[in-house]
C-alpha cells in the first residue's frame, strides 16, 4: 500500500512568497503521476516536500496512509532520481547502488542480489565496477535509477531526470523509465517541464501553474478536455490556437463570427451547451491538427476557410502553416503535398467537432 496523499499542502518562504498554495492530490498505489508545468510553478517544490527535502509550511502529506510531515527523508521509504544524477563520484556503480542498502545494514548477499537484479533490468551489468566519471550521461541516469530500484521503496520520485540528456537519448530513456515502471510497479511521482514527457509516461498528469493545480487527468483527458486556457495551451505541441470571436445566433443555429467575416458553425450537439452564451465575446480554441488543408468538407462539422500562410514548416510527415488571424498567430497542420506556400491563399478546413470555447476573462473552458 503506497498511496501518496497531499492535503492543502502549502510551501511558503520568508517574506510571504508562496511556492505551493494549498494543493490537494491523491496518488493511487502503483500509479505513475507526472507533475508538469512551467518553471516556478511549484512542481519541484511539491516533489521535494514529498521527499522530505523541503519543510511543509502547512497541510499534510501522507504515504501509505501515514502522515509523514515530520518524518526525516530516510524514514519515508522513498527513493529519488535527480536531474544531475547525484551519483557519488568516489564510488563504483555497484557501491553507488548498494550505498542505501549498506546504510540500512542489509546482508551482503541480499545487497548483491538486489544490485545484480537492478543492473539486469537496466542493462548496466558490465558497468558495475566503473566509477561515474567513466560513464555517459545515459548510463549515469540508469545508475541513478538503479540506486532507486534496489531500495524497493514505497515511492519513486523523479526530479526532471531527463533534462540533462540530448534529445535522442531522452526519448530512449523515456521508454526505459516506462519499461521499468511496468516491471516494478512502484508508485511514481515524476516532475518535468516537458509536456511530451508527461503525456507519454503518465497514467495521470497533474498540470501545475503558479503554485496551484490547474487540472489532473489522464493524458487523453487533458488533451481533449482541458478545463482552462492554461492547460489547453500547455498540453499539445504545437500549442492550441486561441482566436477571439463572437458567439451568435444565426440561421437557426449557433455560429462563431471570427474577424475577417469568417463564420464557423457550432456543431448541433453543442448548441444546447452554448445557447446561453449567444451574443458574448469568446475565444475559439482549436488545435493545429484540426486546422487542415481543405478536406472532408462534405462531412458535418468540417467548415471551410481560407488562410494565407506567412511561414510554412515542412516536417516530413506534415507541414505546419503559420498565419495571422485577428492579431493572433495561428498554426495549422496540413498534408505535405498540400500547396502551402508563404503568401499564397490556401483553402483550409476546420474540424469544429474538436473546438473549445473559452471565457476570455476567466480563461475557463466553457
Amino acid at each position: 500500500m503506497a498511496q501518496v496523499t497531499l492535503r492543502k499542502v502549502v510551501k511558503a518562504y520568508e517574506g510571504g512568497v508562496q511556492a505551493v498554495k494549498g494543493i490537494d492530490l491523491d496518488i493511487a498505489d502503483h500509479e505513475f503521476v507526472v507533475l508538469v508545468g512551467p518553471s516556478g510553478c511549484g512542481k519541484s517544490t511539491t516533489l521535494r516536500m514529498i521527499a522530505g527535502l523541503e519543510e511543509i509550511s502547512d497541510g499534510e502529506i501522507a504515504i501509505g496512509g501515514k502522515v509523514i510531515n515530520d518524518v526525516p527523508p530516510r524514514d519515508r521509504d522513498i527513493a529519488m532520481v535527480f536531474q544531475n544524477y547525484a551519483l557519488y563520484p568516489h564510488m563504483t556503480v555497484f557501491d553507488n547502488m548498494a550505498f542505501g542498502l549498506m546504510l540500512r545494514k542489509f546482508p551482503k548477499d541480499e545487497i548483491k542480489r538486489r544490485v545484480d537484479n537492478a543492473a539486469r533490468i537496466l542493462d548496466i551489468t558490465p558497468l558495475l565496477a566503473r566509477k561515474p566519471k567513466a560513464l555517459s550521461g545515459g548510463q549515469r541516469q540508469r545508475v541513478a535509477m538503479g540506486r532507486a530500484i534496489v531500495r524497493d521503496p514505497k515511492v519513486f520520485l523523479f526530479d526532471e531526470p531527463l533534462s540533462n540528456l540530448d534529445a535522442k537519448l531522452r526519448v530512449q530513456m523515456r521508454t526505459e523509465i516506462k519499461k521499468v515502471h511496468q516491471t516494478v510497479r512502484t508508485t511514481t511521482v515524476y516532475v518535468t517541464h516537458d509536456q511530451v514527457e508527461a503525456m507519454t509516461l503518465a497514467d495521470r498528469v497533474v498540470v501545475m501553474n503558479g503554485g496551484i493545480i490547474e487540472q489532473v487527468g489522464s493524458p487523453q483527458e487533458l488533451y481533449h478536455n482541458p478545463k482552462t486556457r492554461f492547460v489547453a495551451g500547455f498540453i499539445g505541441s504545437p500549442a492550441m490556437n486561441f482566436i477571439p470571436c463572437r458567439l451568435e445566433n444565426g440561421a437557426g443555429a449557433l455560429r462563431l463570427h471570427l474577424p475577417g467575416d469568417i463564420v464557423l458553425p457550432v456543431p448541433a450537439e453543442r448548441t444546447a451547451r452554448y445557447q446561453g452564451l449567444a451574443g458574448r465575446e469568446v475565444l475559439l480554441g482549436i488545435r493545429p491538427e484540426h486546422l487542415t488543408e481543405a478536406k472532408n468538407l462534405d462531412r458535418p462539422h468540417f467548415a471551410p476557410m481560407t488562410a494565407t500562410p506567412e511561414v510554412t514548416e515542412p516536417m516530413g510527415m506534415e507541414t505546419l502553416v503559420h498565419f495571422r488571424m485577428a492579431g493572433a498567430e495561428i498554426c495549422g497542420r496540413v498534408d505535405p503535398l498540400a500547396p502551402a506556400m508563404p503568401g499564397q491563399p490556401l483553402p483550409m478546413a476546420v474540424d469544429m467537432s474538436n473546438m473549445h470555447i473559452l471565457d476570455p476573462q476567466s480563461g475557463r473552458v466553457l
Partner: protein
Amino acid sequence: MSSTTATPFVPAEIRHGSLRRERRWALIGAYVALAVFVVFFMTPPFHMLMTSLKSSGEIADLSGNPWIVAAPTLQNYWELLTEGNYLVHFRNSVIVTACTVAISMVISVMAAFALARMKFWGSATLATGVFLTYLVPETLLFIPMFQIIGGLGLYNNLWAMVLIFPTLTVPFCTWIMIGYFASIPKELDEAALIDGASHLQMLWKIFIPVALPGILAAMIFAFTVSWAAFIYPIAFLVSSDQMVLTVGIVSDLIRADTFQWGKIMAGALMAALPPLLVYAFLMDYYIAGLTAGATKG
C-alpha cells in the same frame, strides 16, 4: 562558408608562422622570468648548503669565496645528529605538528561542513567571522595567550603549542574547506539523506572522500604553519628539551655573540626537508584544493 571557400590556399607553416614566432617569444620571456625567479629564490638555500659543508675555520676565513667550499665536510651534520638536542627538537616538532594537523582537521572539517551545508541562523556571518580571526596577527595575541597558557600551567611545556597552533590553522583550514564543500553539488547530500545517511555518515562517507584534495590542501597549510611557527614557541618555550626546531636551532646554536653558522645552516636545511617532501608529493592536490572554491563555488 563562402568566406572559407574564398580564402586562397596557404601552406600551414606560412599561415601560422607569425603565431609560432609570437609563441616562441612568449616562451623565451617566460623562461627568462623563471630563471630570474629561480636565481632569486634558490640563492639563499644554496648559500646555506655551501656554508653547512664548511668547517668553522673556513667560514671564519673572510678571504675565501663564500659560494665555494674549499674542503667539504659533513662535520656540522654529524655533530648536530650525535650531540646536543637537535633530534629532540626534531621529535618535538613532529609531535606538535602531527597533533596540530590532526586537531585542525577534525575541527575545521566539521566546522566547514556545518557552515557550508547545515544552514542555520547566522551561519554566513559566522563563516566570514572565522576567516576574519585568521587576519589577527600572532604578535597581537601572544600577550593575552601568555596569560592563558600561564593560567593553565603550560608555560615552557611542549603541549602548549598543541593548544595554541590550531588557533592559527583552524580559521584558514575551515575557510578552505567551506569553499570546497560548497562546490559539492547539493543533490549529493540530498541523495545521501534519502539513501538513509545521518549527517555524520554523510560527512564521513561522502563529503570527506569527495573533498579529499581540499582536505589535503588544508592539511599542508596546517603542517606548514605549525612546522614553521616561531613567535609562540620563542615566547612560551624556554628549556631546550621542550623546544621545537625553529627556536631550538637559534637557542642552542647561538650562544651570546657566538654563532655556529655551519650547524645553524645544516640544522635549517634538515628542518626544511619534511615540508619539501610534503610539497613535492602533494603539490597537485594543494593547487586543486586552493582553486576549487574559486572556480566552482
